[in-house]
């Protein structure tokens, strides 16, 4: 990872530097017009957020059943990033919805499941912060359950009501819009890997610091 980091950093910066040109040059969507431009960042962050949630779930499972402290650090980092990306998704979504639906919020499948995920991972962070000693295992269980929860929440709210553009928006996207969109997804995934690596590194140093403090006490 250490050798890969600068390469990814350059790649990520290049991807993000070129993204605005692609987004600006992409055609106007006929019914929504300019506001559709939010889509490029909104959907990319949403995809990255779900990737992050599953990363946290898998890392938590590895920590719980394999007892690897490194997995716990990755899980913690992924949970924090899930909350961050979720915040971006939950703010950029309503900004688009205000124009497209005339409402800031709709209780629809994707909005609700994103909100539930966001709450679960907030709970994860809350536990890490206020749970006291031994809370990392409990937090790992929350991460694991949070990831397993996605299909259920999604299915349930979908049964309940749906207004959000359905999944077939992405595959049927006009070719001239698909390019910029995939570009943005790649940029965000790249950024995600970088942030995850940086955050995990921070947690690693913290663990090392704790070890040193313990050594000092002896």
């Amino acid at each position, binding site marked *: 990872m250490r050798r890969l980091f600068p390469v990814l950093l350059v790649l990520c910066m290049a991807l993000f530097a070129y993204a605005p040109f692609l987004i600006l040059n992409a055609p106007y969507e006929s019914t929504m017009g300019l506001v559709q431009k939010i889509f490029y960042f909104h959907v990319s962050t949403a995809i990255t957020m779900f990737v992050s949630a599953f990363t946290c779930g898998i890392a938590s499972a590895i920590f*719980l*059943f394999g*007892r690897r402290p490194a997995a716990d650090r990755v899980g913690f980092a992924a949970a924090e990033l899930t909350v961050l990306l979720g915040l971006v998704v939950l703010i950029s979504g309503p900004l688009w919805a205000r124009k497209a639906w005339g409402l800031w919020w709709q209780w629809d499948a994707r909005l609700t499941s994103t909100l*539930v995920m966001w*709450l*679960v991972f907030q*709970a994860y962070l*809350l*536990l890490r912060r*206020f*749970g*006291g000693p*031994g*809370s990392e*295992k*409990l937090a*790992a*269980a*929350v991460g*694991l*359950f*949070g990831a*397993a*929860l996605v299909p*259920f*929440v999604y*299915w*349930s*709210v979908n*049964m*309940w009501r749906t207004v959000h553009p359905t999944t077939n928006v992405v595959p049927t996207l006009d070719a001239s819009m698909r390019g910029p969109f995939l570009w943005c997804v790649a940029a965000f995934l790249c950024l995600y890997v970088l942030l995850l690596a940086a955050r995990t590194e921070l947690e690693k140093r913290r663990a090392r610091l704790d070890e040193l403090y313990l050594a000092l006490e002896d």
Partner: protein
Amino acid sequence: MTFLSTATLVARKDLLVEARSREVIYTSLLFAISCMLVFAFGLVKEGRVIADAAGAILWITIAFAGTLALSRIFDRERQNETLRALLLAPTPRAAIYVGKFAGVLGLLLLVEGIVVPLVVLMFDAQLFRHTGWMLGLLLAGSAGYAAVGTLFAAMLARSRSRGALLPVLLYPITVPVIIGGVRGTAALLQPEADLVLARAWLMMLIAFDAVFITLSLWTFEPAMTE
């Protein structure tokens, strides 16, 4: 000692303690009734409950009373340090979980045994036109709620600020149970009960139970190890 006998002993102990003190039952019941009272102010219009609200009142009351019961049951264990002793015993952890789960589910069903008829009486909800379906929804929903609740309440029993953390953890994770229960009940409460829809929700609840009971059984052991 076999798996089943351990689980039965753990569950029996919880129910016996409860049968003697009746603390959890009394407090959760009174709490459930106060909940219904509070809902009535928001959801009753011109003397009648608004459409679909009865199911929501029922399930939210169950969820709230369930949280109270869960935290009380595990507080009791904590006060007497019995959970620790139980975990030190050379029995499979999963058996302890199953016992606790059965105890919590039993208490929850007892509370529902009184709350459900009360909702029927006070909000004029025809819950028992399709008794089998309604009982199925109640049982499957409570099982899912108790499964997740037992795991998290047990793990939180040792941590700080557990009173505040339990609802924060439990409600987002049991969202499917609440949606399934509320919508399934609403489907049964329609003038022409929509049994197809009710069955879809019941199936979802059963799938939720299967996945989350398995995950809890699987997580309980590594999570409860010091």
